[in-house]
């Protein structure tokens, strides 16, 4: 099985368990990330957002065909958001990595008895969280997170704005991921492994 994506540069689907780093200006990667993690039939989407309120994320996912019952949000923007029919977990800081992992586990806790679930996981963005944590910590967190995505046969998309960091930080973070999507104004170009 794989995760199908529409109009996503040179990629049409990603293999189970793959994590993708999406780089570019955050206004563009925010949109492209939601394109990539919008759930198809029988899939779920969990979006961890550090820069856009949960309400907007849900609206944007609905615009891309999602039903509310398919969606779960971890909102780290410190906004109080309640959305009917969508579990929204709020955290006070994008740097609260333990909180993110705990809420992620709780969002899936109710489903695990039904066996494996098809899920897309979006994280927008790594850049914001990096302002609150050390590079070393973020690198380790991403490794553990992508390992969880791999063991669960999910599909992970993590966005990052390279202009917000030095080149070395960008190059270090990209080493965690199977594939990278460079998002430009008019095109998306995917490189690496785990996609077709």
């Amino acid at each position, binding site marked *: 099985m794989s995760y199908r994506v529409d109009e996503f540069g040179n990629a049409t689907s990603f293999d189970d368990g793959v994590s993708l780093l999406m780089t570019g200006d955050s206004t563009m990667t925010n949109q492209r990330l939601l394109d990539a993690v919008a759930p198809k039939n029988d899939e779920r989407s969990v979006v961890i957002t550090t820069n856009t309120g949960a309400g907007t994320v849900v609206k944007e996912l609905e615009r891309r065909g999602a039903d509310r019952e398919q969606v779960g949000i971890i909102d780290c923007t410190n906004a109080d958001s309640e959305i009917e029919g969508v579990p929204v977990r709020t955290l006070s800081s994008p740097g609260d990595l333990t909180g993110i992992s705990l809420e*992620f586990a709780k969002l*899936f*806790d109710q489903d695990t008895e039904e066996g494996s679930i098809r899920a897309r996981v979006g994280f927008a963005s790594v850049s914001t969280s990096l302002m609150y944590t050390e590079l070393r910590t973020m690198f380790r*967190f991403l490794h553990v997170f992508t390992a969880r995505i791999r063991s669960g046969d999910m599909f992970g998309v993590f966005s990052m704005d390279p202009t917000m960091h030095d080149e070395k930080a960008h190059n270090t973070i990209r080493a965690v991921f199977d594939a990278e999507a460079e998002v430009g104004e008019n095109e998306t170009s995917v490189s690496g492994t785990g996609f077709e």
Partner: protein
Amino acid sequence: MVDGDDQPTVLVVEDERALIELYVRWLEDDYTVLTAAGGEEALEQFSEDIDVVLLDRLMPGMSGDEVLEEIRERIPDCEVAMVTAVEPDFDVITMGFDDYLTKPVEREELLETIERLLSRSQFDDIEQELYALSSKQAALRSSKPKEELDENEEFSELQRRIDELRDELNTTLPGMDDDDFVAMVRDIEGEEADSNDDMPGGLE
């Protein structure tokens, strides 16, 4: 963490003599087993060689929670499984334990838990090496043009080793579940907080 051919070391802290004997019987073929009948005795056994501690939560004298605090201070790399009479939820992980077992503990369950905790340590070890090499590679990439690196033998050797470690990392915890995930992230943040404590001007 596992040195050479040496077996991993497990410290069993339990006040019921009969249970200690039972656990030792189950574990002694695969691990070096140390035992302590209480918290105070456990502290005397502490060393960097200990990979996993099996810790009874409710003991007379020093409680399991207090012993845990000492372990985190003195052997931060060590994995700790709490043995408890009641089924806990995710809170056990935020309390600082890495895993838990509910009494009565079955043999299979005990062995499986210890193996899982050792795999987590192994994951950490590989990840640590991967970080060192990835930083090195990132520094090279930032300082030299791509054409030059493509022809550089040291750089391709670095890339080869990184790929190898990535494969190892991907196969170390194939059955990683949410408990593993949460506990490992908590450990990462815990270690980060500790290292900042030692460093003036560190974050928070």
